[in-house]
């Protein structure tokens, strides 16, 4: 393996502060146009700042170069295959960016009088209606800012629902395969997490579930499930699970991160879920932005509706005078606000544009192709060396993603899942999600999404094969990987032991 530096490796990372030079500037401000007394005549000296913050001093051309150069140090969805399990890295249509940028959307003040923001409120209402139909639940709140925010909302709704019935419950059940945000949300909502085991089919272990409920049914507030779950498998027992939880008086929460598997094919509401969050930045094509923004609207059943966050977008019929749209604040049982204003509207515009583009049929086709692509890639990886070295964790048809175990690879070749992931970088692929879900040893979680071509899937399978062949010959190659990335393996321990989290100036 060539160890010579690539051109990009050769240029040392310099922050914009290091490129700053006193006296330079990009912005030219408008003239004051008004009297310019010294500030101390307007604000008491002791409330004024002595020195301005040490922001960079640099002219526009170099700012643009700096961030353009930085951008090239990112791998992105428009660069290549990005099979990051659980993240639904599907194509981000530019049309959505275009419509979100229309001044009527982008420059609309959130406090605008509803009667002067009818277009925006109607769009939100239309999106609510669409998500309601897709989830099979009658009511939607768009307020949560992301999935984890939706989870917290769901748990606070559960608490309010029970409180309204004079109950206080303390336990929230979640399978050991659940995503980290689930237990974290449970704690923030003041509940205690009770783990439920997974059966040999990758679903909820029913006996364990019954046991955990029977311990004290009156304490069971909620069961949080992802279905298909984080193994990419649909839990066939979902109807029975729902019955058990409802019997115990708990709510059933659907983590919608995997909704991309079932759009137009099966609906959480029909499965018996009371509360669902939808990650618009996954199933509905909002770009991930390197870590957001997203949005996590929630859809709920009738019994949960009274407690939905405030404000709620509503449609008024004005007896025949044509409908109008409003923000309803008068919701006495509401859990209240979860954030400022009405939610991540810009994300709503993009996702609604996506829904309009594909339509009901297109959404169903998207899920169908997502499932087809996942099963095809799974089949490709059941050929050749991967079959033995990287066996699938649960050998059945998957939905939109699947999980492999690197355990044999590690045992037989001394190659950890991490090494495989890093070596994939040299082949121009983004690695799958690694070491999650926790119950699979050396897990690799692979979600191709529907927008990838067969050629990309084949190329990925061939890369895995090539790496395994290479490793049989010399595992060190992968263990030292990557070689061609802007930087090579980074010392994450150091970053946590003695954290340097800002530029010293």
């Amino acid at each position, binding site marked *: 393996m060539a160890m010579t530096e690539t051109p990009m490796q050769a240029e040392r990372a310099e922050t914009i502060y290091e490129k700053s030079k006193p006296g330079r500037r990009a912005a030219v401000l408008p003239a004051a146009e008004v009297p310019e007394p010294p500030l101390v005549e307007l604000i008491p000296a002791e409330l004024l700042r002595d020195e301005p*913050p040490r922001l960079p001093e640099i002219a526009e051309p170099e700012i643009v170069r700096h961030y353009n150069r930085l951008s090239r140090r990112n791998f992105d969805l428009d660069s290549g295959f990005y099979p990051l399990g659980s993240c639904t890295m599907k194509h981000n249509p530019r049309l959505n960016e275009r419509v979100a940028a229309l001044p009527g959307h982008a420059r609309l003040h959130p406090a605008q009088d509803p009667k002067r923001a009818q277009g925006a409120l109607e769009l939100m209402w239309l999106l609510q209606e669409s998500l309601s139909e897709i989830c099979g639940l009658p009511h939607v709140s768009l307020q949560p800012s992301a999935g984890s*925010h939706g989870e917290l909302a769901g748990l606070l709704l559960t608490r309010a629902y029970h409180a309204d019935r004079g109950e206080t419950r303390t336990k929230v059940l979640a399978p050991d395969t659940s995503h980290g945000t689930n237990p974290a949300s449970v704690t923030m909502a003041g509940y205690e997490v009770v783990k439920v085991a997974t059966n040999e089919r990758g679903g909820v272990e029913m006996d364990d579930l019954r046991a955990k409920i029977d311990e004290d049914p009156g304490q069971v507030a909620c069961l949080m499930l992802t279905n298909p779950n984080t193994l990419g498998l649909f839990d066939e027992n979902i109807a029975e699970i729902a019955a058990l939880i409802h019997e115990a008086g708990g709510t059933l929460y659907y983590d919608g991160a995997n909704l991309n598997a079932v759009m137009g094919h*099966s609906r959480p509401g029909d499965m018996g879920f009371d509360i669902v969050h939808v990650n618009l930045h996954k199933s509905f094509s909002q770009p991930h932005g390197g870590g957001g923004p997203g949005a996590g609207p929630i859809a709920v059943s009738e019994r949960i509706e009274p407690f939905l966050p405030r404000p709620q977008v509503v449609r008024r019929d004005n007896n025949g005078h044509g409908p109008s749209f409003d923000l309803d604040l008068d919701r006495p049982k509401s859990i209240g606000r979860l954030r400022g204003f009405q939610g991540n509207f810009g994300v709503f515009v993009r996702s609604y544009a996506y829904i309009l583009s594909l339509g009901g049929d297109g959404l169903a*086709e998207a899920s169908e192709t997502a499932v087809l692509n996942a099963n095809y890639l799974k089949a490709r990886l059941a050929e050749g060396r991967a079959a033995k070295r990287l066996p699938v964790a649960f050998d059945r048809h998957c939905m939109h993603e699947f999980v492999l175990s690197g355990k044999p690879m590690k045992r037989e070749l001394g190659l950890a899942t991490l090494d495989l992931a890093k070596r994939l970088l040299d082949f121009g692929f983004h690695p799958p999600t690694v070491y999650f879900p926790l119950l699979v040893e050396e897990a690799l979680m692979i979600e191709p999404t529907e927008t990838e071509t067969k050629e990309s899937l084949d190329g990925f399978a061939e890369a895995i094969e090539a790496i395994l062949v290479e490793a049989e010959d010399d595992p060190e190659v992968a263990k030292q990987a990557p070689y061609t990335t802007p930087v090579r393996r980074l010392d994450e321990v150091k970053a946590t032991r003695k954290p340097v989290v800002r530029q010293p100036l």
Partner: protein
Amino acid sequence: MSRYTSATPEDRAEMLAAIGVDSVEELFAQIPESLRLDRPLALPGGISEAEVFERLAALAERNEDAERQVCFVGAGMYDHYVPAIVDAITQRSEFLTPYTPYQPEISQGGLQAMFEFQTAMSELTGLPVSNAGLYEGPSSVASAAYLAMAATKRSRFVVSRGLHPHSRETLATYSVGYGAEVVEVGLDGGVTDAAALSAAVDGETAAVFLQSPNFLGAVERVEELGAAAKEHGALLVVACDPMTLGVLKPPGEQGADIALGEGQPLGNRLDFGGPSFGFFCATEEQIRRMPGRIAGETDDVDGRRGFVLALQTREQHIRREKATHNICTAQALNALGAMIHLAWLGRQGFRELGELLVRRTAYARERLAAVEGVELLHEAPVAREFAIRLDAPADRVLDRCAERGIAAGYPLGREYPEFGDGLLVAITERRTRAQIDELAEVLGAAVAAERQGVAA
């Protein structure tokens, strides 16, 4: 095959063969028959890109945005000019489309940008530690409360009524989950009632929450107010407007343990309320209790400088139920926009912008105070927003102004019944002297008309 998928009939046939099934339905068979949707979704069919554009343009047309109205509304989000380079850079695929940087070797662009952003927010707030951003302002306040509980093992919050109503409401919502108590302290002369505050703070208090400038635009005496918190070992949490920090004393120099706020004024458009971001800075002691992503500097195996997500052991994906917060996807792209805007303003420009806001605001405040039927709601010093009282129903006056193309401000009545006909007026660098003069004229006319009961 949709416009975004590529599987041709031939592809499908080959793929199904490789899988060993005859149809995709077989793959969906794992979903019990009874749970499979036996009808198409009740949604319209897909339409062409041009049609989607027309449809959404038509909706957008029905909003009165800040391009059609002269906007004096603030209340936490402001009509600042976002420089063109912000869009040009944040719209690059390399920043727009990646996931959270879990693979640092191929995410140096995003990670370094986070590191630069953290540095900027640390500079603005005068606190050493910043995260890479949270959802938005109000939920960041609730997140600070969660940190304060962990730091103090207490569960009582004392909150100034000067804190943004959305922040107070959000804190109340979260506190139900936290099992915490929230105590509110009133205002006096537009600023937090100092006596009431120190009376309210006790040994059970986890944190004291202030906002400066507060919701009425008044610059608070944070240091004095914070004394009570220090005395009882409670954390001092200060919400602030980043655009004022070029001229106002940073919270970090006034004893704040945590400084946070709504980041929208920095490089983010109004977007009817989001997406924007919340910033969150703290003292060194709190670094391991911080919520959200934090980028940190390190080296690669060859000694090259690089950046990674630091202190991940705080986070939900590692620590699960013991995490310092549940946040995962946040607002990275919005924080990048803020960083670019700040770099564009630069050290000098940022200060000059602050001064411009203070001076135009002073001018506007004086101008409006001189209008018949308008008086100042408080006399406290202000930076970029101020409150007035109208001698007429605020909503009706606002309607009259809107008819003349001016969004005159934010009505206080709903959230502050005590200021029934109060109006909050915000200034940005986009609001020219001419527009301010026009506001005075239009507002005066509207108030007069209302008082004379002229039909609108």
